[in-house]
């Protein structure tokens, strides 16, 4: 059993597990942090961005004015943003049989895998994961295609040139594998390969392996996966949460008794308490509005935004924000809000009981009904006529490199009255803001990451007790910036097996048993004998059938009777050759009992001689020696076949045959 690690990003994993005869890809996360190296894509012409100076090396030898622009001391690529894909050279991805998706954030590279590698398998995901994943992909494609950029910068990727660039561009890795966004057609084709699954559904893969998603408590439809055969169990934990937010709580007990537990997607903000961050978010928002400023919240279109809206729903009136307009701008804003209301089965208990009333599970339905929250596909159209300030705007993309958020940065960045509040933990806020510097706008950083922290995960592991843990190497040491915090790493016994991009791990697995089914006819013919109290043995001679990785044992067919008619000569299928079973003997021959048995069979003249290991019996009339020992019987008998057979049978009476 092997694990191929195709992504180095601990929360956007992509691993391939070879287990028995199957090749299973676990998630295919798309590392989007690469876009931070690019200039933002403005929706309307931005004089500021277009006037940025081009970059020329200090000695003037390298001139990349067209491709690279300088802003506030940093260099950005002026091109359509590109993403860092999972590794494609480590193994032939067309051999992947299935892809298991754990949540909608971890499937963003799916079209690259399914459409560009010759993949012919099936993708498994829950319904919310599929639907919301589709929305996020649609949004991404829309953001890119709305502002097409003719230029595609490639010169800077030249190794010689990249070496001379200032950081962080200089240190960017695998730049040649970076790719532009996929097309909507590829998204549709990729998602058509998804097969929907429900929590705890058991899916058989080729009869060899069974996979089953479990609720992971992180987002709508998010799951951990169990990959098991009858005797081996691998748990894949990715993006799990123990906090009570909107999704169904995490199923922990089903992870028990794993041979290997692959652990990814822990919190990226181990020191930030989500509840505290939520409080800070609300108070900063209220403060800015009261002072007459606007609030910009760069966010994904699904996920934490539901919790933010729910929090605001309770907060608005007490903070006197009843008249402040809240805008949610995204090409998929409406769909995301609508979809969130129809997944009752996937929600926490409280929200489920609301549906039984029947009421919408999320209060943002009421915010929309009372016109407090309005949603628009983009800043163009209706929004431009409805737009009132001061206001709160939720919009993407959280990297601040594309999407409607770019427009608001340009619009509000120059005023100190306005505030930008970062809630998504995926991007460093300083890097995100870099191409907008100098900024007058206030910045507040309240990253909300509900995924497991190190304290929670060690408690979880103590509970479920996997034999081995595999995790990204980042989790085996404290974060670089806080090297003294030994509590911010995994300390386990035995130590976890770390992986990084391009690692190939041999998982410590000894497969020893396999399931086989004995057909009723054969089962009835078996004769068990008790060897020790509570333990019985039966010898089995049977025909083994293996089909679709399932093994059955059948009785050995009796040889067919010789065809009575001579007229029709048909080739009769030869019955399987029954090799004589070699019975193994066990036990010892007790002397006295054996002697009396001999006597019964007319052998009376026996001279017994004691030896170191047992006895030698001299059958004087027959001139035969029998040597009885603990582990063996030796019969020396010349040319008397009937006697030999008798003796053999008598000895065998006292022994167990296997």
């Amino acid at each position, binding site marked *: 059993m092997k694990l191929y690690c195709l992504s180095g990003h601990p929360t956007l994993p992509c691993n391939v597990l070879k287990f028995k005869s199957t090749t299973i890809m676990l998630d295919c996360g798309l590392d989007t942090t690469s876009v931070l190296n690019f200039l933002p894509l403005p929706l309307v012409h931005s004089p500021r961005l277009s006037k940025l100076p081009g970059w020329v090396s200090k000695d003037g030898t390298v001139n990349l004015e067209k491709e690279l622009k300088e802003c506030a001391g940093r260099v950005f690529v002026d091109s359509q943003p590109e993403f860092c894909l999972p590794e494609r050279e480590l193994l032939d991805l067309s051999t992947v049989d299935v892809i298991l998706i754990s949540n909608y954030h971890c499937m963003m590279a799916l079209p690259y895998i399914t459409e560009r590698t010759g993949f012919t398998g099936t993708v498994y995901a829950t*319904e919310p994961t599929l639907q919301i994943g589709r929305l996020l992909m649609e949004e991404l494609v829309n953001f890119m295609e709305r502002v097409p950029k003719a230029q595609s910068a490639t010169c800077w990727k030249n190794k010689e040139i990249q070496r001379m660039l200032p950081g962080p561009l200089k240190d960017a890795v695998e730049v040649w594998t970076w790719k532009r966004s996929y097309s909507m057609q590829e998204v549709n084709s990729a998602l058509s390969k998804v097969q929907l699954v429900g929590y705890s559904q058991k899916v058989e893969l080729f009869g060899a392996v069974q996979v089953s998603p479990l609720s992971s408590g992180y987002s709508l439809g998010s799951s951990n996966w169990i990959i098991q055969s009858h005797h081996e169990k691998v748990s894949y934990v990715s993006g799990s949460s123990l906090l009570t937010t909107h999704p169904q709580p995490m199923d922990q007990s089903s992870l028990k008794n794993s041979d290997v537990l692959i652990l990814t997607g822990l919190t990226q903000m181990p020191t930030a308490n989500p509840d505290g961050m939520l409080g800070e978010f609300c108070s900063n928002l209220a403060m800015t509005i009261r002072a007459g400023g606007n609030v910009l919240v760069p966010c994904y279109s699904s996920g934490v935004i539901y919790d933010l809206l729910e929090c605001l729903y309770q907060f608005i009136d007490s903070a006197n924000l009843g008249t402040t307009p809240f805008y949610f701008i995204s090409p998929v804003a409406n769909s995301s809000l*609508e979809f969130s209301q129809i997944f009752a*089965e996937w929600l926490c208990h409280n929200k489920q009981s609301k549906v039984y009333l*029947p009421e919408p599970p999320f209060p943002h339905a009421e915010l929309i009904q009372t016109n407090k929250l309005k949603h628009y596909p983009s800043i163009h159209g209706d929004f431009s006529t409805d737009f009132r300030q001061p206001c709160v705007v939720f919009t993407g993309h959280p990297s601040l490199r594309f999407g409607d958020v770019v427009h608001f940065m340009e619009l509000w960045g120059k005023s100190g009255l306005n505030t930008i509040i970062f809630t998504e933990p995926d991007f460093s806020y300083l890097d995100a803001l870099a191409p907008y510097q100098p900024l007058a706008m206030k910045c507040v950083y309240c990253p909300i990451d509900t995924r497991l922290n190190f304290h929670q995960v060690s408690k979880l592991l103590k509970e479920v007790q996997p034999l081995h843990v595999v995790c990204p190497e980042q989790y085996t040491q404290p974060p670089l910036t806080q090297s003294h915090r030994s509590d911010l790493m995994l300390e386990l016994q035995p130590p976890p097996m770390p992986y990084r991009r391009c690692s190939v791990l041999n998982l410590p697995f000894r497969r020893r048993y396999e399931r086989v*089914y004995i057909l009723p006819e054969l089962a009835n013919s078996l004769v068990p004998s008790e060897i020790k109290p509570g333990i019985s043995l039966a010898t089995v001679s049977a025909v083994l059938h293996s089909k679709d990785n399932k093994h059955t044992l059948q009785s050995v067919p009796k040889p067919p009777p010789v065809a009575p008619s001579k007229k029709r000569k048909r080739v009769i299928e030869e019955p399987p050759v029954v090799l004589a079973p070699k019975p193994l003997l*066990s036990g010892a021959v007790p002397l006295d009992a054996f002697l009396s048995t001999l006597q019964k069979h007319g052998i009376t003249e026996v001279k017994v001689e004691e030896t170191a290991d047992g006895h030698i019996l001299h059958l004087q009339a027959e001139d035969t020696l029998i040597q009885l020992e603990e582990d063996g019987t030796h019969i020396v008998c*010349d040319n008397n076949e009937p006697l030999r057979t008798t003796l053999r049978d008598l000895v065998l009476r006292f022994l167990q045959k296997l």
Partner: protein
Amino acid sequence: MPEIKVTPLGAGQDVGRSCILVSIGGKNIMLDCGMHMGYNDDRRFPDFSYITQNGRLTEFLDCVIISHFHLDHCGALPFMSEMVGYDGPIYMTHPTKAICPILLEDFRKITVDKKGETNFFTSQMIKDCMKKVVPLNLHQTVQVDDELEIKAYYAGHVLGAAMVHIKVGSESVVYTGDYNMTPDRHLGAAWIDKCRPDILISESTYATTIRDSKRCRERDFLKKVHESIERGGKVLIPVFALGRAQELCILLETFWERMNLKAPIYFSTGLTEKANHYYKLFITWTNQKIRKTFVQRNMFEFKHIKPFDRSYADNPGPMVVFATPGMLHAGQSLQIFKKWAGNEKNMVIMPGYCVQGTIGHKILNGQRKLEMEGRATLDVKLQVEYMSFSAHADAKGIMQLIRMAEPRNMLLVHGEGAKMVFLKGKIEQEFSIDCYMPANGETATVTTNPSVPVDISLNLLKREMALGGPLPDPKKPRTMHGTLIMKENSLKLVSSEQALKELGLNEHQLRFTCRVQLQDPHSDTDTLHRVYTHLKSVLKGYTIQHLPDGTVMVESIVIKVSSSAEDPNTKVLLLSGVIRTRTWGVFFQPC
């Protein structure tokens, strides 16, 4: 031989009060717990005293599963759990869990408040009963206990209807509840995978019917409504608040829009708004088309359909009214029916099945004079139309499901006995499987023949598989030998050697030695060689080796030659070997 027993307490050769007991692998399961619309006395509920005479059912049942929210499938649930007494788990899907208590409360109100019955379950009992409900998701494998697992499949029929697969070890049963094999305007078609259950328990409401295409029926329906409206008549459509009602509403709504009709459409019960809201929130349970477009246009927001007020019934002019309940046995639909029955311009369209004993059933059978309560009679002059819109599988659909699931036995419930006989014959003929149709209180017993799961040591398996070549060839079965170790509950199949090792036993060697004297003038080595060539020519099919250490091996028997001390021409052959099944006899003949 293990057996599976199925006993219907209700719905055995009958429609109504579905309640089927299944015993499988030592587990007892109750499938559905419904009431009978045709009775107002004790026969309204299943006879739970069949299970036990004295009191509570908890220790006799491992779980109760409710297939969908229709009262003939869940109407007796609070009675069973709170009045007879059952505290174990009750499984149903989320939509069923949401809607079921509302219908139960409705049922209770009609029975207790309107008819004044006592000794009936209370609102509190409904609530307490619902607390015992565990929601089921589609395709989720729910482990009721260590051995019993259940899995729900989509059944169409009504919102949240499910079929259940019940499995204990390698034995299994599928119960369909009510299902529909053709998608309709708001729901999808039932689906199940090839799970090969030992018994498939199927409803058979339309056992003998093969219905024409849905489109024709819809066209017919619209035509009849339209004609009636045109001549100024009133159309009454008795429905249940949830289910068919939504389908027909979608149908009329789109027709009204297309034809630009002005006559009002009313929906009689306060439930409407609520009912439609359930459909909006459980949109994932509707058909693909509605699910795909719900963000742009939610099909359950009706423009033309307005809530009904009792006074509207006397308004002049045409109108269409959806009223509950669907079998005209009580409530608002019956009141409106009484009002409109006298006018031949009016029409009543029965869109679903009516249970015997209800007014719906009577008028469908052509009865024109009805005896009402209080000895009054009612002349029925209005047109009576029947349109089979109830979403049950027809004969074709039932056969289709059998093909999907490939059961080993079939069992019919929820249908009329005479029709079942016909379908039973057809199933036995077409699929060559046994088909049962027990009456209420009768037990059908099916013996199963499960294979025994055993853990085989991978070494042994691989050794055997290697003999068959790299790819298994179905024509060349491979024989294997091993030892089955039975210890507590575990069954392990290992090679004999490993079995000895695992049990801490030593192998006992049984060796034989014998001397054979023969006259041969050659040297020892030559004699050995001659023995070797001789044996080779005599013993075909045995492995015979001449080893360099001066021995000949026949299989595992060692032969050595030495000269007698007294006479060099007398050679002594020493044969020694461990026991094998083959007798040594063959071997000595030539000597």
